């Protein structure tokens, strides 16, 4: 039985890794400029023409790597929060840190700091996410309960969203408002390695902190008293969860804008393929999130529209069928 479980898990992880690799390769292959496979392979091998090399190394590789990292962070964070809050509707934005990161970015656009340096916007977004974390700690206090955490998260998110609305409201001209709106829709377009270097450390810290607590999340199946009585230090679990989500998701939003639904739907797609325990979906959700976001980013490039479709729009449309499926299952229509 144990061997069978282990084999099933290896199969799942292997399959998701393969899917992720295929998505990443597809992301290198497809773009605004059609590049044949042999030229891409030549450039990857270190020779090939300079145009191909520029497109590949300055545009497609950073975009692909960012897609993988941001997707992994959102998927993992969603799985982790759903487990901790014992609520299948939880997602990375419930703690308010992604809204706060967006507010920082909007501030950079509104006050014109974004024009000073390309990294000014992500830096301000991360700074704002960290500030919101301080506020979250202040509001949620030292209690172990998950309800206080949700309430504090809603307070932080509402405050950040009010700030974003204010910036849109006070925008000096429609173009400035449009610039903010466009950024908020979420995209991986025109990102460089600089963006990757600013997001990656945050995401790495986030992933390490969130992967740690699988066992505590399993114990929470029995409720908070049940978990504590099994030796779980809920306070530390909650601390790691808050830090991991704030830093990781803050870093992800800083470079990609707000991309919804990945963190919500990936755990739902993964859960039926596992034994449904919260720990079993953590790593697969990271891999699945990476694959799904990269595939969505390919769809953005393939769907013919006059201006490029924004990533957050595609993921939002992806979320709808998953919600419907869940609704039908709840109503026991099948």
């Amino acid at each position: 039985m144990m061997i069978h479980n282990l084999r099933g898990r290896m199969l799942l992880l292997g399959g998701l890794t393969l899917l992720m690799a295929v998505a990443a390769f597809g992301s290198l292959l497809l773009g605004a400029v059609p590049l044949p496979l042999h030229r891409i392979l030549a450039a990857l091998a270190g020779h090939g023409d300079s145009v191909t090399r520029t497109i590949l190394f300055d545009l497609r590789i950073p975009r692909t790597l960012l897609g993988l990292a941001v997707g992994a962070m959102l998927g993992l964070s969603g799985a982790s929060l759903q487990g901790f809050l014992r609520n299948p509707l939880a997602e990375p934005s419930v703690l308010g840190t992604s809204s706060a990161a967006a507010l920082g970015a909007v501030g950079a656009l509104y006050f014109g700091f974004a024009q000073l340096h390309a990294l000014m916007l992500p830096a301000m977004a991360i700074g704002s996410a960290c500030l919101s974390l301080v506020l979250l700690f202040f509001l949620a206090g030292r209690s172990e309960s998950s309800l206080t955490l949700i309430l504090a998260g809603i307070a932080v998110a509402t405050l950040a969203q009010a700030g974003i609305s204010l910036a849109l409201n006070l925008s000096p001209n429609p173009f400035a408002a449009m610039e903010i709106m466009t950024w908020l829709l979420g995209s991986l377009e025109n990102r460089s390695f600089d963006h990757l270097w600013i997001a990656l450390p945050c995401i790495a810290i986030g992933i390490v902190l969130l992967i740690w607590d699988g066992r505590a999340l399993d114990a929470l199946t029995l409720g908070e008293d049940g978990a504590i009585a099994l030796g779980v230090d809920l306070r530390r679990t909650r601390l790691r969860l808050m830090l991991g989500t704030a830093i990781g998701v803050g870093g992800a939003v800083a470079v990609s804008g707000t991309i919804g639904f990945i963190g919500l739907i990936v755990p739902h797609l993964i859960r039926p393929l596992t034994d449904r325990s919260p720990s079993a979906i953590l790593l697969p959700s990271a891999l699945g999130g990476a694959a799904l976001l990269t595939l969505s980013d390919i769809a953005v490039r393939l769907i013919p529209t006059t201006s490029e479709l924004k990533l957050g729009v595609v993921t939002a449309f992806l979320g709808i069928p998953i919600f419907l499926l869940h609704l039908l299952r709840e109503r026991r229509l099948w």
Partner: protein
Amino acid sequence: MVMLTLRGVGVTLGRRTVLRDIDASLTAGMLVGVVGPNGAGKSTLARAIMALVPSRGEIALDGRTVSTLRRPDLARQIAYLPQGQTLHWPLTVERLVGLGRLPHLGPMSRLGDADAAAIETAILRADVADLRHRVATQLSGGERARVMLARALAIEAPALIADEPLASLDPGHQIDVMDLLRDQARQGALVIAVLHDLTMAARYCDRLILIDEGRLIADGSPQQVLTPDHLAMVYGIDARVDMEGAWPSIIPMGRRHL
């Protein structure tokens, strides 16, 4: 052999004093029943022993104050079966019973042979072997109660606290659970069960603790504790109490109007 000592234990939740001045000394090998009316403080006593609520006075396990023990250490010493059967995710029975091994595992280690053996023993003792691949949230109340008990047994702790383990069980399953708790005590564990069924308490428990309005009213053998006077005072009922022979019974007859 574990020994649990309560000295002047009190609990205040918000502004309400739920427990006051509870003294008791409980030793291994005993099945101890905690009885009393709704809201008397029975569950709070169980939660105080598990250090789930802050308490005054001293609660010591083998001379060590429980609230100063590291969580995993306390979890290995006392298995706790909370009231109700909260289950937030649809785990399989085997996986659920396996949660009982958490206190024995390091942060990243996997279940080993000793853990697998403990899980197997617990599954057999609670008689849930035929349910092992079922999803626990889809079981009947009686099945789920046995699975939860198996989860507590898998910890292999020298003490077990069960909060209303008989709630919502039919008479057959009540007997199964009480047999199992008594068996656990006979094997050398200290077993504390919060109970509402006084006849079951009288038949199975070696010792009873009667609580009312947060105070200890009586502590002793079922014969000493379940007297008509005590029942009238605590529950406000007239009861026919028969403690003679092998099958003691307590039959509530009606409300006593004071």
